[in-house]
């Protein structure tokens, strides 16, 4: 049972990070990060490449020694009780390497043997849709299958906290969806998940709370909905017409706060998208035009990031 750490909503946090600092020579990769993760929560670290997400996770799982700050996991101080922490956490790295000729079942048996508390390998095979691949060698698995195996290995000790570092990077959409389902399953089992990602949709879909990280600092931390609600970004209405519309008429549509046009394609920023779309359709009808395509995009965490930093996540 947890013996220490912060409290969140009356519950003792399974993971508490306070003033975490890590430098590589003159480069400060992590600059005083602090956050806590509640039991059963999926907590996201969202940021561009080089923001310090991986370094943070590597410090939390004991792959790197932090230069400063404290890390408490399941009530155990990482620095003083590393073995106790390792018994309680599961980790999926960006890329998990295993001996090329080990089979899927052998890998699960091997990793299960390292822990006092073990999940049954056969149950993990079934849970991560790997039963058909149980006797397949690691070198023969696809990228998605390797990531599912990495996830199964991370769950082999039934961890209380699961660390996932960019788990879906380089996966095809189908494999990503499968992994998302697996992560939701982990949460449903009451375990905490710390997920680092640079995919906005992934953070919005999966995370209960998101810390937006940039240059080694948390620049915003809240639920995705609250973060988005806090931004001044407008809904975008993108449409294409058979022939260009008059720019003045478009700008005068109800609720429009900004217009960007490129030939027949136009993007409107609108504070009242429903009324803007109705007015737009009337405009096209009255001018004898034809609507070819129409898309609505709500503000996202990308907009939050742009508003906070002045640049896009993938810049």
């Amino acid at each position: 049972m947890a013996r220490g750490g912060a409290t969140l909503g009356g519950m003792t946090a399974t993971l508490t990070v306070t003033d975490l600092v890590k430098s590589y020579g003159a480069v400060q990769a992590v600059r005083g990060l602090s956050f806590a993760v509640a039991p059963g929560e999926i907590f996201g670290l969202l940021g561009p490449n080089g923001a310090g997400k991986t370094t943070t996770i590597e410090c939390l799982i004991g792959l790197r020694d932090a230069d400063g700050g404290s890390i408490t996991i399941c009530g155990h101080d990482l620095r003083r009780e590393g073995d106790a922490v390792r018994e309680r956490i599961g980790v999926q790295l960006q890329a998990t390497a295993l001996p090329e000729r080990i089979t899927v079942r052998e890998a699960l048996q091997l990793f299960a043997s390292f822990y006092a508390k073990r999940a049954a390998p056969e149950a993990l095979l079934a849970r991560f849709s790997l039963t058909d691949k149980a006797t397949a060698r690691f070198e023969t698995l696809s990228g998605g299958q390797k990531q599912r195996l990495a996830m199964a290995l991370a769950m082999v000790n039934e961890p209380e906290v699961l660390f996932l570092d960019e788990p879906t990077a380089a996966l095809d959409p189908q494999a990503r969806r499968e992994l998302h389902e697996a992560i939701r399953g982990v949460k449903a089992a009451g375990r905490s998940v710390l997920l680092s990602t640079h995919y906005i949709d992934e953070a919005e879909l999966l995370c209960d709370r998101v810390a937006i990280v940039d240059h080694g600092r948390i620049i915003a931390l809240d639920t995705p909905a609250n973060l988005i609600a806090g931004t001044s970004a407008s809904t975008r209405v993108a449409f294409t017409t058979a022939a260009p519309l008059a720019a003045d008429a478009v700008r005068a549509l109800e609720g429009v706060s900004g217009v960007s046009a490129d030939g027949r394609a136009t993007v409107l920023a609108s504070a009242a998208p429903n009324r803007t779309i109705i007015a737009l359709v009337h405009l096209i009808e009255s001018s004898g035009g034809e609507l070819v395509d129409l898309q609505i995009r709500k503000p996202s965490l990308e907009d939050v990031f742009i508003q906070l930093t002045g640049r896009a996540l993938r810049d």
Partner: protein
Amino acid sequence: MHGFLTHLRISLILNCRNLQALIFGYVVPVFFLIALGSVFGGPNGLTAASMGQVLAISTLGGACFGMPITMVGERERGVWRRYRLTPLGTGWFILSTMIARFLIVASAALLQYALAMAAYHLPLPAHPLDLVLSFTLVSFAFIGIGLIIATVATSIGAVQALGQTLFLPMIIIGGVGIPVWNLPAWVQPISLYLPGRYAVNALANSIAPAGAFKAPYCLAALVVIGAAATVVGWKLFRWEPGQRLARSAPLWILLAVGTWIVIGVIAHANPAFVPAR
């Protein structure tokens, strides 16, 4: 303990699935046996001294090439990084890897001995338990050296370069490939500073009527060389691909090599400790 045994079992299984490892682990040792049997096998067959050389060469090869190639290959691919995240300690992983290699070289040695009995009229060892003890200590010393190679080398090419740096001197002037009494007089003392000399001596004595304890100094030398190398390999052990060696690495390596020098100086001053024949 369970994790250690499972890692040991899986290591042995993976070795059996690796064709290259099987060739280097079993076919090449048989080639050594045939080569030395053809060169040194007299009209009465292979002598205990020559069989000591055969066993020492194949153990040296398995320890200084086979084990480090596997370890460095896995480390540089990130396999050991993943192991590091588990609660099983460094010592257990090292011990498991060393014991796995010992079992591999021991099985190759058994094969060699059986073939030598069949093809070169080699008798059963006069002191089987002595041979088990000697072979275990020889393996301990060489596998310890292999562990240092694995921790220092950053690529498989580097393993081969470092391995050859140790392998060739022991084969040519260390009494392992060429019997020490066939070496020029001025070269013979040099062999006292190389672990292979003590390995061949201990193994040959165990097969011959003399017994391993005819030269207990050789057994003690193997224990010291193995212990120093294992401690240094453990201290310098690296989990991560591309991880830098500790700044103190040269001092630790000097400690390991220093034991060879001290052992050689003592043997040089006491010729009876390590008889040439």
